[in-house]
């Protein structure tokens, strides 16, 4: 299946995600819908927090993203969010913007992969 391969390449553990959702296709769609709504908001909050150097805000937003990605089995994106959270805890801005950019890329890749999965599932 093409979507499955894409998911694997994008750091999405699809078997794990489907098992967590107990193979509920409808739920997969709902989750994806909510993710699409929530992710841009958190992404914007993180960018703003980095720009203003608000470590606490960076930490909590990165933590929320980490949890969300983990629930969706976006392992690459989740690891990236965890690194940002740790940087914020240590109050270091060095390299954080780059890590945020990496997170965005990984998340979008995973999002695209998941979209393909959803479309495939819908067919």
């Amino acid at each position, binding site marked *: 299946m093409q979507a499955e391969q894409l998911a694997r390449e994008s750091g999405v553990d699809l078997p794990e995600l489907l098992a*967590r959702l107990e193979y509920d296709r409808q*739920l997969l769609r709902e989750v994806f819908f*909510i993710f699409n709504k929530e992710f841009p908001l958190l992404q914007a909050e993180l960018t703003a927090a980095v720009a203003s150097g608000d470590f606490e805000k960076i930490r909590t937003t990165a933590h*929320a993203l*980490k949890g969300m990605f*983990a629930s969706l*089995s976006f392992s690459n994106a989740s690891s990236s969010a965890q690194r940002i959270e740790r940087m914020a805890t240590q109050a270091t801005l060095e390299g954080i913007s780059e890590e945020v950019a990496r997170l965005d890329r990984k998340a979008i890749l995973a999002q695209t992969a998941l979209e393909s999965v959803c479309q495939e599932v819908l067919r």
Partner: protein
Amino acid sequence: MKILLADDDAVSRLILERALVRSGFEVVCVQDGQSAADCLLAPDGPRMAILDWVMPGKDGPTVCREVRACTAVPYVYLMLLTSKEETGDVITGLEAGADDYLTKPFNPEELKARLRSGQRILNLQDKLVHEAQHDPLTQLPNRAFFVKRLAECVRKSRESRAFQFTLLFVDIDRFKLINDSLGHATGDELMKGVADRLLQAVRSETIPCDQTEHRRRSGRPFDSVARIGGDEFVILLDDFADLDDGVRVAERIELILKEPFLIDGHTIFITVSIGISASNQRPQNSHDDLDPEEILRSADSAMYRAKLLGKARYAISDATESTRTRSLFKLETDLRSAIANKQFEVHYQPIVDLADSRIVSFEALVRWRHPQRGLIHPDDFIATAEENGMILAIGSLVLRDACHQAKRWNPVATTRPASICVNISPRQFQMLDLVASVREMLLESALEPHLLELEVTENMTMQDADRASQILLEMHKMGISLSLDDFGTGYSSLSYLQHFPICTLKIDRSFIARIDSHPESSQIVETIITLGHNLGMKVIAEGVETRSQMELLRRLHCDFGQGYLFSCALPVDQATKLLEDNRQGKPLIPNNRPCGQAALPISLSAAS
């Protein structure tokens, strides 16, 4: 089962929510810590919760701590959501009061297993709480739980005099008889039946013990029925403004229990005695010291009064009753201390041969030398001692003293012995080791058994005639004399007189008091004397106070007399002096009687 899911991450929340719904839970979702705490501390809140560690407002551990600090709500099983890589959080979370944790991202099978484990623990805990607070037979609340509920009403009543409550103390009449005759299994079934009917008689739902606080918060009145002892039930009528309401419930209970119980082929009719006590019976200014245990005691006293009035009725507690209860409590406390501090002493009242005025015996009578109240007459404490069992200690003390004293009065065999009469109380008579105990006293004092006379009453022998017969025969075989006290006031059963080895009849003082003024009393006394003599017994007249009574008794051939005319009960030294003088032929001189009672001109030495 309701479960709270608190997580600010919408994706995780949705996935978890669905997993929980699939596991059969009713899920309440919130997004922040404060809402989670509010939900868990609300009446009828969820009994399980999954709390995310990081949440806006309050984090998961803080919510755990708040929930654990509140003892008014039933136990909530708390699970914390934590990241896999943050294992240090687990310790902090458990310390904060969490029961378990779940790592994010969760595994559905692990989630279900942990939830099942939580439910098992909750079920077990509910069971333990239920067992600790309920009577296992009827499943009604037990005494401890009931008192807690009563205390809650007392608190509400203290806060506002507008809130009043009424307490009913219900006791099944003659339940012991049912238990003894039909067996404990039937007795137990009857108890369950009574519990069911009592619940029908009140505005009660059987309330799970762990929900009372929630019910209290809901403000709806409800009645509680509890079983607090063998055949004792109590009913708390919540928010009843009028004592008449309590009376109406009591009447309803009487009516509802009138229908027979059909148990194991037996048709059982019962009656109950009910004591009613209400919170508004107390004076205005005494409301602050309203005490749950005292209210319970007050209803108990009223129930006891209903029993004394003949059972199968209700009685209302009043302020006097309450005072009486307090005095009774004080008396009981003082009695305990009196036994411990040896405040009892034995006085001796002579019993005189009416034919030649010699002292033939003494009746041993207990007196209580109270450190504050002075010498207390037995009428003021024997009934209480009998009721609470302290009579056993007192009775034993009197018997020991009396035996030793009688031995001192009769050191060697003499032609004019003075025996000793000791009263046996109903409780003592029920003692399994009464005979052994008497035998031990005789051995200890070296008193010859024929010098000991034990007095029993008809009532004691009537309760269990076979057992009574066995005890009395054993005593008789030992050589002890037996007398029947207060004869004429009880059953006066001739058949029993024939079957029991009684040597002496004591005619009750009530007949003697009227012997010279009421011809019928004189006839009764004459009949008793004749009856006693025909059965080979001696007869003693109690309460002889006047010369004319004594002379009439002599004419009726009564053997012995006892009463103030001769002497009241005396301390041992005075009794000893009286006996020594009498043995030397000195008559009892009324004017010199130490007790100073009813001094009458009499010379017994002149008696023929």
